[in-house]
């Protein structure tokens, strides 16, 4: 048993925190307000190797282990959950799916584009009638002369459009093929692909969530990721990685919220003393710090599992459900500690609170993960339960 980060991981963490403090913190409020993905910062992140964080060097990646990558997400989320989600979607859902499921040609073609930031990965699974339940998809992929023809509508596509300025989007989209659900890599300029409505969101306002229309999109066989019918497995594995990624984001936002509110409590004087002297405030802080410490090594453990092969569905769902709850409860308490200042958009807590709420909804709502956890627990006793 050894819970210590390696010297290298500790060094990376300092580097990540410096980057976040210097590059992310100054623009976090602005990009939330203007609801734009920060292209300049993403390019800087690309130069640091963050956009290819876990990709091998041969694809111009930074070759980080997943624990280090989780530290990166955690550090970014301390200042801005939106950036953490954009990066997490790009790396955990798209790039790593290509890395683990793609053939050599696909890796050589797409991974350098993603690592260098020439293209940003977008994940297209959800449909109007397929949210938690993705057992069947309305989007169809029909084989036609060595190609597939895709038709359908995808909603809530994270990173759906990175506007102009020379950054393309690479969609990882899932469709029902004759062999079953199949994954496809679709560049944004593919004929028949249209990026539509952008969802106005409570939080994560700089992450562009779009509806994407696929109308007679002809996708060559070379762009099918994995075999026909292997899409479900690819998606599930991506979601297991994303659960840990969002867990790391939850950890970051919760940590920084306590820092911000604790500092506020030492300065805010009521009834002649700083409110830090009040036990009600101390309890809010102590309960939050305790939950954060309980979460911390659940996240690192999940990341360590990814580094050692694959994390189990049970562990992924535990991290996802618990981290979403912690982020939500902690940010809620810290809004309360700061009172009116917690509610004002002039202070960062309101944004953190809005952002944190997304974590219980995206990547599978907590309710779905609860069922998956129960499913795993009962499966040890040969009881099969369905969502």
């Amino acid at each position: 048993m050894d819970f210590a980060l390696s010297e290298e991981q500790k060094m990376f963490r300092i580097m990540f925190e410096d980057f976040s403090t210097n590059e992310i913190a100054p623009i976090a409020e602005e990009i939330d307000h203007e609801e734009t993905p920060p292209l300049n910062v993403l390019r800087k992140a690309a130069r640091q190797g963050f956009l290819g964080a876990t990709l091998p060097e041969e694809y111009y990646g930074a070759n980080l282990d997943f624990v280090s990558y989780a530290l990166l997400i955690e550090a970014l989320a301390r200042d801005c959950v939106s950036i953490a989600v954009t990066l997490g979607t790009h790396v955990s859902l798209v790039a790593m799916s290509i890395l683990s499921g793609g053939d050599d040609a696909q890796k050589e073609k797409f991974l350098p584009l993603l690592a260098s930031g020439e293209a940003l990965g977008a994940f297209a699974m959800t449909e109007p009638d397929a949210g938690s339940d993705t057992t069947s998809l309305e989007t169809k992929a029909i084989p036609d002369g060595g190609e597939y023809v895709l038709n359908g509508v995808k909603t809530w596509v994270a990173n759906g459009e990175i506007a102009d300025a020379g950054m393309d989007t690479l969609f990882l989209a899932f469709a029902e093929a004759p062999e079953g659900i199949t994954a496809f890599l679709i560049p944004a300029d593919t004929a028949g692909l249209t990026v539509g409505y952008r969802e106005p969101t409570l939080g994560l306002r700089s992450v562009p969530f779009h509806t994407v229309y696929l109308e007679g999109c002809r996708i060559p066989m070379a762009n099918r990721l994995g075999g026909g019918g292997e899409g479900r497995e690819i998606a599930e594995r991506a979601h297991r990685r994303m659960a840990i990624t969002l867990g790391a984001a939850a950890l970051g936002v919760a940590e920084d919220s306590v820092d911000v509110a604790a500092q506020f409590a030492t300065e805010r004087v009521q009834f002649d003393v700083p409110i830090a002297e009040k036990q009600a405030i101390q309890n809010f802080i102590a309960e939050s710090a305790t939950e954060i410490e309980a979460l911390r090594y659940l996240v690192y453990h999940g990341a360590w599992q990814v580094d050692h092969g694959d994390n189990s569905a049970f562990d992924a769902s535990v991290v996802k459900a618990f981290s979403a709850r912690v982020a939500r409860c902690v940010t809620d308490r810290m809004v309360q500690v700061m009172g009116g200042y917690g509610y004002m958009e002039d202070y960062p807590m309101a944004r953190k609170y809005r952002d944190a709420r997304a974590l219980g909804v995206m990547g599978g709502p907590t309710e779905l993960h609860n069922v998956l956890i129960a499913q795993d627990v009962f499966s040890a006793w040969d009881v099969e339960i369905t969502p």
Partner: protein
Amino acid sequence: MDFTFSPEHEALRRMIREFAENEVAPIAAEIDREGRVPFEVLHQMAEMGLLGVCFPQEYGGMGAGEAGYCILMEELGRICTSTATNVGAHIGIGAMTIYLDGNEEQKRKYLTPLARGEKFAAFLLTESDAGSDAAAIRTRAVRDGDHWVINGTKTFNTNGSFADIATVMAVTDPTLGARGGITAFIVETDTPGFEVGRHEDKMGIRGSSTAELVFEDMRVPHENVLGKVGEGFVAFMKSLDMGRLTLGAAGLGGAQAALDWSVQWARTREQFGVPLAQKQSVQWMIADMATEIEALRSLVYRVAWMVDTGQPFTQVAAMCKLYGSEVASRAIDRALQIHGGLGYSRDYPIERAFRDARIAEIFEGTNEIQRIVIASRIFREHGVRISP
């Protein structure tokens, strides 16, 4: 990073689990009903070396470290919280004080028989007017030549009625308070003037003994001062830090048992034509338990690792105690709900576990005190000192 247990710790867990299931489980209901300490179990554990699980072999211990001790408490907590309480009071705070602050001679003389389980330990701190505010104790020790004469009354002493060796906190200089005015002593309980008073009748952990102890002109040799004169408060607090972590481990075991019972029941109990397991209300209770258990597990063993690698752990140990006791209480509460009437019946173990779990939110520092310990560390980082 490596989240796996060593083969030694795995083997230790197997040994303890087998023992707990074969020897402790059959008597758990009985000792609760009869309100008796299961000495036969404690003696067996002594023979297995478990009563010195965390202490170095040179003092008669097993040398399995804090992680080994947490494994012991987790496995006992799964089966019988009373037994875990007896063991925790003996190892975690009683003997631990001597291990942490005793000199070489004291360790040879007192820790060694305790670690071997030849003698039992207790940790005497609480008084009628000094609970959370431990520095408010009034038990007085006055120097008389090469002895100290101790007078006072200690309350709620786990193992106090049968312990052979006790660590006692007493005021040695009333003008100085917690820092400098309180001293810890090792007391042999057959010393004249050491009297056992009333036994408490408790809601739960009824297979543990909680007694009042009265000291009347009890003469303790100066060589039995633990650590330095005036430094007893700090010594006791250090032991409590250690004890808190292992309460989290016992809570982990208790919560796991609640989950296991619930799963077993939910898969067989049918209502509306299907097992309860098919109902999402029940699935969610199961999922919440399983999730909190995983979070607690990672916290407990990470803090054990911090102790074993010599890192500061006061704040995180308080988190283990706070979170562990709450997770255990929530889990057993959900288990009771899933079992319905059967959960409420004294014919089934849920009812006992429900009563047993409640104590962990209270003893070894109430959860309110744990929150203060945690918050004070955080505010200190922001330059503000808070008082309880």
